[in-house]
């Protein structure tokens, strides 16, 4: 079981590495969205500081959403997905491996540049570590929930918009606790409660989402 997990993980990471341009596009999207906000709301430092946690989190959430359709599309098109479903290995295992590889190749780069973007918005230094921590706990939940949506909309016309409609309402709690954690830290009330809730959400998502995702993939490839 572990060997399946590692084999799928290795393969997907290798594929992601060979198609690095996609990852860079996601990253560029994140950076540009964050940079749009000062143009929209004005460059007043106090105002930017106040909206920084929300802006960074929404931008990360959108970057995650827009890359989600790539999660299974390639494997669906070339038949790999069907072969994986036919194999004897439990589907939840390799689904988890694919989600992890996807998060490592899209979520992690976004988290890596997030502190730099936070400096652009003049977020307080103390908030940076909590921002990184909340994104590290929160973006995997987004990817796991999004994977279910991506599996359900596989191969549909207008799948991208539909995927957004399906998963965005489900992303709201993550956004609330993620952005809330940074805000709570900056305002001095401590981010522990938010981070614990995010961690709990992540544990729940890891436990449930791969199964739902595997069931969705079965339905979509029938």
């Amino acid at each position, binding site marked *: 079981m572990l060997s399946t997990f590692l084999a799928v993980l290795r393969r997907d990471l290798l594929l992601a590495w060979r198609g690095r341009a996609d990852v860079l596009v996601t990253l560029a999207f994140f950076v540009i969205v964050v940079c749009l906000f000062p143009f929209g709301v004005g460059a007043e430092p106090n105002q930017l500081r106040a909206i920084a946690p929300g802006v960074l989190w929404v931008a990360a959430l959108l970057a995650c959403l827009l890359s989600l359709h790539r999660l299974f599309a390639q494997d669906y098109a070339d038949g790999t997905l069907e072969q994986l479903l036919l194999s004897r290995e439990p589907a939840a295992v390799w689904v988890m491996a694919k989600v992890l590889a996807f998060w490592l190749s899209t979520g992690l780069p976004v988290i890596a540049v997030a502190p730099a973007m936070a400096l652009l918005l003049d977020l307080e230094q103390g908030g940076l570590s909590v921002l990184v921590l909340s994104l590290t706990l929160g973006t995997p939940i987004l990817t796991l929930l999004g994977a279910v949506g991506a599996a*359900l909309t596989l191969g549909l016309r207008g799948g991208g918009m539909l995927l957004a409609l*399906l998963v965005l309402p*489900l992303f709201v*709690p993550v956004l609330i606790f993620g952005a809330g954690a940074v805000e709570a830290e900056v305002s001095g009330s401590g981010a522990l409660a938010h981070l614990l809730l995010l961690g709990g959400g992540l544990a729940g998502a890891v436990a449930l989402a791969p199964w739902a995702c595997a069931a*969705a993939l079965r339905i*979509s490839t029938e």
Partner: protein
Amino acid sequence: MTTSERSRSVLRFASPQYFYPLAGKLAPWFAALAVVLTLAGLWLGFFVAPTDATQGEVYRVIFIHVPAAWMSMFIYLVMAFWSAVGLVMNTRLSFVMSQALAPTGAIFCFLALWTGALWGKPTWGAYWVWDARLTSQLLLLFLYFGFIALTRAIEDPRRADRAGAIIALVGAVNVPIIYFSVNWWNTLHQGASVSLTKAPSMAATMLAGMLVMAIAAWMYTIAVVLWRVRPMILERERHTEWVGTVLEKELQAVAANKGGRA
């Protein structure tokens, strides 16, 4: 179970063939009940119930608002229930039921938001505040939209059924989480909201009017869903023999009606 036993069992109505005529027979009764109860409820609400001491006449919107809000939440649960039954027992009718429920749920959800906005303007001074209840109701509307859009976007009915069932269940698991998170977010932000729970206790006639309207909403939902289920069944089972005979019979009835009038 022998064949005769099965044909007498209530479970036979899980088969579209038996449910189709039953739905046709029951729907008008529920519709009639809905009309009677709505008239009674509105009469109670608009003419019998006293004017509220603090809010004046504006409060009367609750006779539509509260039943609509209750119904929108309850219908999502019923939808998730039928989805689960469909996935576990592999019954076609369950999926049809959950898809027939979705538009009604969405309409009630929208109605609750709309009447809430109309009530909010004179009471809170704004059509919309980011109150926990309002926000979770809005997210529920988005969940309905997602379910409807997904089931309509997939052409193969088998895949549409199952995909819709999964998203309904995922949504049902998330609804309490969304409600909790939005509540948490709201209490931290201290929005300019007024708590309804702190309002003084209601007059008995107000409560009665609201309950009658709530039951009317139930009856309306049942009637509409039964009506919506019938053409859906015919469309899905159009290749079977029994649909052929049903359609032929209805055609003959229409022809006889025309002949009688001429």
